[in-house]
């Protein structure tokens, strides 16, 4: 069930200048959360930030009643959230959106870039629980833009690409040698910048592999009430916060 709830900032873990992980603790924690779900976080203390910000659920711990978010500071709101102090109150609406489908067996590839890696901790864990064999392919500009690989390595093989070659293969994720070989994946999951996701969807399509993408979008409400967050599709405009954020890329006509 969706809730509006106050949490306390329990810990702030800075990954580097622009990336950090927030862990919030509440008196209560909704347990019915799935990989791909997100929260709408209210940004306290900044007049210019009027609307909540959609952020994927990175992880949660029902025992400790904590929920965490991996955030990349790209603008006013995400920078401000990085300035909060432990003990500060943070109000969130959660869990929102649909989720990735988790098969019962098989072999899958997860392709992530930028802040788009956030949903893949929960996804990797869920896949592992089902006995699915998972490969993570994470891309960034330099090795300083690659995060969470230690987490991911608990759930599968981790491959990396960087544009400057400072870690893993040099180039974009879609240029990884993996895509040159025979791709016997049952599904590809992707989240990250639009051009990356579209390229991944195309590669998947060419090989007849099912592909699910989690879209970013400007959102006002996050609960399907305002119809601000749409993405075009052959079947008409899709509402990203409720029909998505996860879409089978065929539905999007990608």
């Amino acid at each position, binding site marked *: *069930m*969706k*809730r*509006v709830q106050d949490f306390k900032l329990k810990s702030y873990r800075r990954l580097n200048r622009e990336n950090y992980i927030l862990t919030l603790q509440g008196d209560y924690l909704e347990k019915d959360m799935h990989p791909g779900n997100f929260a709408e976080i*209210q940004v306290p203390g900044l*007049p*210019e*930030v*009027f*609307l*909540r910000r959609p952020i994927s659920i990175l992880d949660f711990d029902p025992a400790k009643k904590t929920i965490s978010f991996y955030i990349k500071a790209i603008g006013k709101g995400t920078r401000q959230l990085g300035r909060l102090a432990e003990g500060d109150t943070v109000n969130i*609406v959660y869990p929102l959106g649909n989720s990735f489908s988790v098969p019962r067996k098989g072999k899958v590839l997860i392709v992530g870039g930028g802040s788009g890696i956030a949903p893949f901790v929960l996804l990797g864990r869920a896949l592992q629980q089902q006995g699915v064999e998972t490969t993570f392919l994470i891309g960034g500009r330099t090795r300083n833009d690659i995060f969470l690989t230690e987490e991911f390595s608990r759930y599968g093989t981790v491959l990396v690409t960087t544009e400057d070659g400072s870690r893993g293969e040099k180039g974009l994720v879609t240029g990884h040698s993996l895509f040159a070989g025979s791709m016997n994946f049952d599904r590809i999951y992707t989240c990250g910048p639009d051009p990356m996701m579209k390229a991944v969807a195309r590669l998947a399509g060419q090989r007849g592999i099912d592909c699910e993408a989690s879209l970013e*979008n*400007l*959102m*006002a*409400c*996050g*609960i*399907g*009430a*305002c*119809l*601000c*967050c*749409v*993405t*075009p599709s052959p079947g*008409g*405009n899709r509402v990203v916060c*409720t029909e998505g954020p996860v879409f089978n890329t065929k539905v999007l006509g990608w």
Partner: protein
Amino acid sequence: MVDLKIQLGGLQMKNPVGAASGTFGFGSEFEDFFDPGRLGAIFVKGITLKNREGNDYPRMAETASGMLNAVGLQNKGVDYFIETIFPAIKHYDTEIIPNVNGSTVDDYIEVTEKLNEVKGIHAIELNISCPNVKEGGMAFGVSCPSAVAVTEAVRKAWDKTLIVKLSPNVTDITEIARGVEGAGADAVSLVNTFLGMAIDARTRRPKLSTVTGGLSGPAIKPIALRMVWQVYHAVKIPVSGMGGIMNAEDAIEFMLAGATTVQIGTANFIDPQVSVKVIDGIKAYCREHGFDRVSDLVGAMEG
């Protein structure tokens, strides 16, 4: 005990707080947060004759204490509303008020005629103020003759309470209010959004696909409040006031200025439970300030 009941034209509402059209979906989106039946009314999202895809993305931009939207009346058309949506929400213990839109007067009439046959719908809100459609919409609401013409036409097709939603993008909103009052409106609601725009300085492009959009939120409250006050003094029919209401205090200010009922719009996005907080806050205010009936607040500003 505070009596929260209020009368908007012929419509009896159990409390003065409604959800504004386009900001509350059809109500079901909020079921996890509270029982939509607690509201005085739900002004459901704008309905047109035929299915509309709405405008292209991006449709939204954040502004100082507000937001611009350019949704453009995305909806599945009146038939879908009547056959599929209304049956699923009519059990809420509140008034479901469709927001009627059209590109032409005939459109408005046709949508209204269809709704007129539906049992359980006791009022419609005639939207002549949507700034986000190429044809019709706000064009009807910014000229007195056309506002009058569409109101008269719809009046003939509608037997129950007719609320006309006015545009604030006018020189003299009292002129339009008097016009639609004369044309048979039972109440007016105001304000719809202000035509605004936003530019991304970095890319030098407009932030909305449509360039302009509708401004809502607390930014517009002082102007909306002034218009409600002016209209309250200009017409005899009741006013449903809105524009930037974020809490009970804001709602009370609108009632003091002359609004018989209020509508909560953008605030639903910031706090999905805001409307019940507003209802509770109005009740507490009445208790504290010795008002037995919420209706006594209406126009109670002391000059």
